[in-house]
């Protein structure tokens, strides 16, 4: 049993809801009408395209194709992180890419291979949506952690230098900033995990139930997904920060000014 299909006419009717925010934006002259229309249009086109290629990917179910697709998603993640934090791709693209790749490989291998015990861990039905969710959450956390890390390192240069001038190695001096970045990036995940099921119903579980799964099965998947998101998010940001801190300092341990895009 699957969810009832939605006719194209009915889907179009769904867009009618958008008149409400558009009218509110217009009344208050927020200047957000254009960006809203663009973002809604982009979302619609992107998802329709996703549906098309997912159909192909699911039909072929080829491990190379599936892995290739996930690699493209990780590359896009690394690129998005660099774009959002206004840092030079030269120093950060490779560390972020490698960090996310390693985290996902480790967590996917454990979850799909050891926990779910799939015979074929690259099975598109599991591998692609689960990895996609892990990537999406890691992306947000890595952006927040980079914002925090480079922002506080710039604002509190004296704190960093105090460590260096009083016997700390660079990594020891940076620990205070990495700790703060972890706190800022992980706190929202901890908070949303704590209220899951009470004030929010997660998308994956809702999707499974709509798709005809038993709620008790959907919940077990959701629990495993939440744990996996937590672990892969933390691994991604800690590895990203530690790897990139090897490239962004000069031989005197000073942050290179070329790290920041003008």
């Amino acid at each position, binding site marked *: 049993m699957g969810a009832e299909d939605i006719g194209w006419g009915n889907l179009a009717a769904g867009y009618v809801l958008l008149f409400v925010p558009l009218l509110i934006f217009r009344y208050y002259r927020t200047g957000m009408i254009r960006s809203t229309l663009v973002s809604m249009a982009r979302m619609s086109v992107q998802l329709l395209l996703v549906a098309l290629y997912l159909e192909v990917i699911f039909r072929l179910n080829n491990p190379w194709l599936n892995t290739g697709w996930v690699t493209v998603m990780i590359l896009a993640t690394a690129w998005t992180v660099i774009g959002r934090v206004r840092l030079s791709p030269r120093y950060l693209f490779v560390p972020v890419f490698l960090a996310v790749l390693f985290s996902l490989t480790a967590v996917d291998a454990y979850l799909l291979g050891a926990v779910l015990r799939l015979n074929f861990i690259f099975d598109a039905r599991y591998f692609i949506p689960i990895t996609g969710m892990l990537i999406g959450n890691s992306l947000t956390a890595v952006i927040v952690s980079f914002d925090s890390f480079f922002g506080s390192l710039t604002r509190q240069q*004296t704190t960093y*230098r105090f460590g260096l001038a009083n016997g700390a190695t660079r990594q020891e001096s940076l620990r205070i900033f990495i700790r703060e970045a972890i706190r800022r990036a992980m706190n929202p995940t901890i908070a949303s995990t704590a209220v899951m099921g009470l004030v929010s119903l997660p998308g994956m579980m809702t999707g499974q139930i709509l798709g005809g799964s038993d709620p008790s099965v959907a919940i077990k998947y959701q629990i495993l997904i939440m744990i996996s998101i937590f672990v892969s998010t933390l691994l991604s940001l800690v590895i990203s920060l530690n790897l990139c801190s090897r490239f962004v300092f000069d031989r005197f341990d000073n942050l290179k000014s070329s790290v920041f895009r003008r």
Partner: protein
Amino acid sequence: MIEFDRISVRYDAEKVLTDFSAKIPAGEKVVFTGASGAGKSTLFHALLGFVPLSGGEIRVDGLKLDAGSVGRLRSRMSWLPQELSLGLDTVRELVFYPFGFRGNRERRPSESRVKECLERLLLPPSVLDKRLDEISGGQKQRVALASVLLLGREIILLDEPTSALDDASAEAVALQMKELEGTTVLSVSHDNRWAERMERRIEIIKSNG
């Protein structure tokens, strides 16, 4: 011996220090004075390798400061900046903060030595058990100073060490510095009373442009 040999520092187009020279023998207690923006703090940043020199050389006992030697030279110094925010909660955490670094662990002082040091800076030993938000700015400055002193380095750099201190506390701090035989103490200060208590005063003239 610390030698500043015609050093120049510039931030983008702005000259902060131009052709500055000075020789400081080991064990001397020196204060650098000068107008705001003359480059007094920059001098410390240059000595610690935090800003690149646009000209000249810095040598410590003949060893030139460069990327290869900066770690060795830093390990002979300790530095107290004018303002410090480490996000710590208690006085004890602040005192022992540098001793958490691997290179300083063997130097971790005993509780009694810390209390003795605090007392010499006119702080009651009980301050060690207080939270940082329970003590005054002047007390905080002396606690941070105690932490730097306890490291026992041969070169101590102090940036405006008396900015939050009353006269009696400033006197006690100056006395501590004088008693550090063989330790070179370089300070930057606007405080005339402090400058008078140091062995030598070096005026830094503001660069033009």
